[in-house]
């Protein structure tokens, strides 16, 4: 991944969070990869080709991201945080990835009474122009599946999100123990990603 653009100094609260939880030498909140097209991961340097319009990744910031602690045996967990869009057009987060998980999906939760279930969110997360979209337990979240490692409390994990225009942004999220966020997956075999039999917990 080419990280050829760095976000401006993050807002104080982001900085406090990241700095407090990051080692002193790694206090970088966002390393944005703002490439000109879907080939975000290509190694070519596209700095000079950036279109005149604002890329979604450039307008994007995340405040207070965190990941629910989980063991590799538990296989699943989720990423939360407040996604903010500083531009004057809506941006859409369409995909995410992290080294910690083999599969990452964007999920929504529906609740009936005290029973919650989650499913993939069609079309991704829309972050309104000049507004924010909050990922939190019991609501939209970035679902991590096929965990390849334990995510231990107090550790950190890097998450890369991709927007509809192909630009990507990476942020670091601390891992927190959390008892909630136990929605059942609406598993119907149509997920197509090969996660059958993972049970409902994450």
């Amino acid at each position, binding site marked *: 991944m080419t990280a050829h653009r760095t976000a401006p100094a993050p807002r104080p609260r982001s900085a406090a969070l990241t*700095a*407090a939880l990051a080692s002193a030498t790694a206090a970088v909140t966002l390393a944005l990869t703002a490439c000109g097209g879907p080939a975000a991961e290509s190694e070519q340097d596209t700095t000079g080709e950036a279109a005149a319009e604002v890329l979604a990744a450039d307008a994007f910031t995340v405040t207070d991201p965190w990941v629910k*602690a989980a063991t590799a045996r538990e296989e699943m967990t989720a990423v939360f945080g407040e996604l903010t869009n500083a531009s004057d057009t809506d941006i859409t987060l369409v995909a995410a990835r992290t080294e910690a998980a083999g599969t990452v999906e964007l999920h929504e939760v529906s609740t009936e009474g005290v029973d919650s279930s989650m499913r993939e969110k069609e079309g991704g997360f829309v972050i309104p122009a000049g507004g924010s979209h909050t990922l939190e337990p019991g609501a939209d979240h970035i679902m991590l599946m096929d965990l390849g490692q334990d995510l*231990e409390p107090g*550790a950190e994990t890097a998450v890369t999100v991709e927007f509809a225009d192909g630009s990507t942004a990476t942020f670091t999220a601390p891992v*927190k*123990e959390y008892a909630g966020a136990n929605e059942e997956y609406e598993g119907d075999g149509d997920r197509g990603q090969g996660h059958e039999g993972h049970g409902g917990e994450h």
Partner: protein
Amino acid sequence: MRGRRRERARENERARESEHERGGGRSRPAGFSRRHLLLGGTAAGLGATAATAAHGLLGEAPRAAPEPPATELNGGLTVAFHGVRQAGVETPPQAHGTFLALDLAPETDADGVRRLLRLLTDDASRMSRGEPALADSEPELAAVPARLTTTFGFGRGLVERVDPGAVPDWLGPLPEFDHDRLDDAWGEADLLLQVCADDPVTVAHTVRMLLKDARAFARVRWSQSGFRRAYGSQPAGTTMRNLMGQVDGTVNLVPGTDDFERLVWGTGEPAWLRGGTSLVLRRIATDLDTWDEVDRPAREAVIGRRLDNGAPLTGSAEHDEVDLAATDASGLAVIPEFAHVRRARTDDPDQRIFRRGYNYDQRGAGDGEAGLLFASFQTDPSRQFTPIQRRLDELDLLNQWTTAVGSAVFAVPPGCAEGEYVGQALLEG
């Protein structure tokens, strides 16, 4: 919903930038502008009037309008978490305090300690500003900081786990005292979190949040909660009274003085403790039932001070110097040989400590226990606390009603800057 909350939190932050006052002094509550407060009071008054009118319409007898609050709200007051020194030592004592002691799990190694301290530092700093900790499932409870401070203390076990060579000589159990009846249930522990605020709900929520982030690394060894007079009940700076009715803590080191610097913050060794201090926490049970049998003159003789204002028996005002040489008409010492103030005194100016204790009063289904959570901060317990306690242990009539049943010593590391965590110099020094 969360977005709105964040917006409010940001407003609070902006408000604090201009209004913040270190040390919990009388600053306007962050996020509550004076205009807000005035409007709040007016609105409450209008509400009461409207309610009265409504009652009248319904043919009910109008009730007296409630008195408007006499004081400004204090729930928004904050004490800065970040700084060279940890908050909660010099901070004028808040009304409520919980001392929470944790023992590290066997599998928690130095890296685990580091992760734990990062998490707890982040939690404590956020909550000190009246913001929820990250992943707080009851964020609304964090909105009233009420001068919240969270102070970290490291027991010998934690320091040994990280770096056995970094343990100060004095960090560990105090010498045995004859009069102590220590219960190990209140004994030494690896990590202490002293959580203080002027609101008990704030203390409970903060303790709960810290525990949620600690449980992957440690288990609770003990938790001791205490109280002083409620916020606003007495003028700030009034010396506390313990449950025996005594003015307790008259002779105390004063923050900001040279003596305080030397005798509380003087720790120069080991290097990771520079800017830190030590905490001695003793659970002192008080036998109030037998104290009830003692009449007022005898009670005053036991201490050597008057009960009404705490003045020495040789003086008239609380802070009058104690005159140990004074004798009465029959030639007897006015302050008896066995009196607490006489025994606690010394000519050695280094044998002084800073006391910041809390009363406790627990009544379960069986016999209750009341007493004092004696908390003292000093540069070196072995040179400051122990000699004083030796003299009291040898002779102090107060011992007849007071018994230490718990005792623990902690190293209080220096504070940290934003982006750092408490104890970083120990972990990464």
